[in-house]
């Protein structure tokens, strides 16, 4: 994925085509293809449905319309991209758009979340939650690992008790079953 340099955001209402740069954002082709693929899949999925009786619209019409809409938007986006239409990536207080994107950090975070998904029932929320917090903080560049693990443990155990005592929802205890 190429990440373009951002120009200062122009006021809304002014089409992006007016920006002096005519660089093509290749990533947008990927988005357009994705839209078309989802649209086609939606149409195929709907075609396999049975139409009930006394139901003039049936379960197919809506997916057909939405799927066609997606295909159309994807096609239009392809044209707009080719003509140099640039997206305006969202800005924010902790977002620094002047440097190029750091996809490695994102991958680390995704890995931490996948680890949580895989282990939460086995290890239980108290441990998985703590690992989630510490792992996410580490991925984002924190180097105070001991403190992060402690904070994560406090958060996870406190939230376990809050849910159990306050709301009567026993989050999975996992390996700590009987200790908590």
């Amino acid at each position: 994925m190429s990440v373009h340099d951002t120009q200062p955001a122009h006021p809304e209402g002014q089409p992006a085509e007016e920006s002096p740069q005519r660089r093509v954002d290749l990533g947008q082709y990927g988005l357009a293809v994705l839209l078309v693929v989802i649209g086609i899949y939606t149409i195929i999925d709907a075609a396999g449905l049975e139409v009930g009786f006394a139901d003039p619209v049936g379960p197919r019409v809506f997916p057909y319309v939405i799927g066609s809409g997606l295909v159309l938007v994807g096609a239009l986006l392809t044209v707009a991209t080719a003509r140099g239409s640039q997206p305006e990536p969202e800005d924010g207080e902790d977002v620094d758009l002047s440097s190029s994107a750091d996809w490695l950090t994102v991958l680390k975070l995704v890995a931490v979340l996948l680890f949580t998904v895989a282990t939460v029932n086995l290890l239980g929320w108290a441990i998985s939650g703590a690992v989630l917090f510490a792992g996410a903080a580490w991925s984002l560049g924190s180097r105070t690992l001991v403190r992060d693990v402690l904070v994560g443990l406090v958060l996870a155990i406190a939230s376990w008790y809050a849910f159990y005592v306050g709301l009567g929802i026993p989050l999975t205890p996992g390996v700590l079953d009987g200790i908590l």
Partner: protein
Amino acid sequence: MENFQLLMGGLESALTPMNLLYAAVGVLLGTFVGVLPGIGPAMAIALLLPVTYRLEPTSAFIMFAGLYYGGMYGGSTTSILLNTPGESASVMTALEGNRMARAGRGAQALATAAVGSFVAGTIGTILVAFFSPALADVAVDLGAPSYFALMVLALVMTTTVLGASALRGFAALFLGLTIGLVGLDLNTGQPRLTFGVTQLVDRLDIVVVAVGIFALGEALWVAAHLRRKPAHVIPVGRPWLSRDDWGRSWKPWLRGTAFGFPFGALPAGGAEIPTFLSYLTERKLSKRGDFGRGAIEGVAGPEAANNASAAGMFVPMLALGLPVTATAAVMLSALQGYGITPGPQLMTDHADLVWTLLASLLIGNTLLLVLNLPLAPLWARLLRIPRPQLYAGILFFACLGAYATNLDPFDIALLLVFGLLGLMMRRFGLPVLPLILGVILGPLMETKLREALTISGGDYAALLSEPLAVVIYVLIALFILARPLIARARAGAEESATPEDEKELANS
């Protein structure tokens, strides 16, 4: 007058010490989450929904009201102290508010925002109490065709009015509608787009979708572009207003309220347009010439407009069951969790609940003022949490919320999928609101469409069988035709709103 008595009755049932405690907790939690970067009121409510699962509906509503107003105020705080509007509704607040803060008048900016929010919220809630029942009376007679038309209007307006690129708006909208399709078809009970996964048959939980796209998407997007230098937070003292500040603020509060409420009540009216109009008006009326150097009117007006619009949102939500903002959508799904179907019959079937909710809004609003004026320095300190830990905390609570609903890791995986979708949307500049409304309104639209056509035996002309529906379609057509003109007028207006403001906002 009857409405007034009902509202008083609602106040009586809401005003117990326990409920006041819930409201206070709601306000504090809401402000806390609202102050966090990139998280608006919709997100605050979605994240904290699990907390209210085991509460009585009344207590839960009171907590929601606190969360809602707290979340909004938290957003204003960051706009003023950091010049970083967390959501489009606070963009106008940031313009003058941050200049006031830099000139050492941050405390006054926060105070005029708090009092203005209180004034606008109170007036707005009272207006909701008077308008909603009347609208619900009318709405009871509306048939499926008119409802369908209303929803088309809401979607077309949100998709085309907000954001710079209508094409990207439609991309987001259709993605949202597709997400709304997932699950059992409501009429024939056949699964659609479920990929054979049992957990998807039950339709997607809007809260998981919202938290994924807002919170997780934001965290991942920030991870890709983390600013390595800490943001500069201006220290702030205890907010107070001098006699002169009061004198300059009260008219903008009222004018802002007048702008905000009607827009909030319109489908897709939102808060962006009224805050913008309010800012321009105050700028034109200002005789002191200190606009652009931190004029208090430029904070008072837009803040009031923002909160009045937030109250106006409840009119279509309560009277028609039509959510017009992401926040309303999340609240509606919470109502459905209590087995309450929103719509015109809500006012009659669950009158006590509705009045309690409106009364809670008044209470939440008052508590906001009482709690947040003294606590402002504390919130300002919260902005200094180191970023890695802050976003780790957001991820932690987002996963906790998703997991606690069904205790199923699948929900965390789903959250991650929507988080990646949110990341993609931020990267390609796709607006979030059309997607969320697509998820919510898509299934509703389909139901109404099939209802209308089942009655008419498949004749599509039935969609035009009610006068209101015809009027709405004419409006939509006019609107689409007039759109280029609106865009031009807006560009012109923004030019006049000093280009350097825009530059600063863009580069901050």
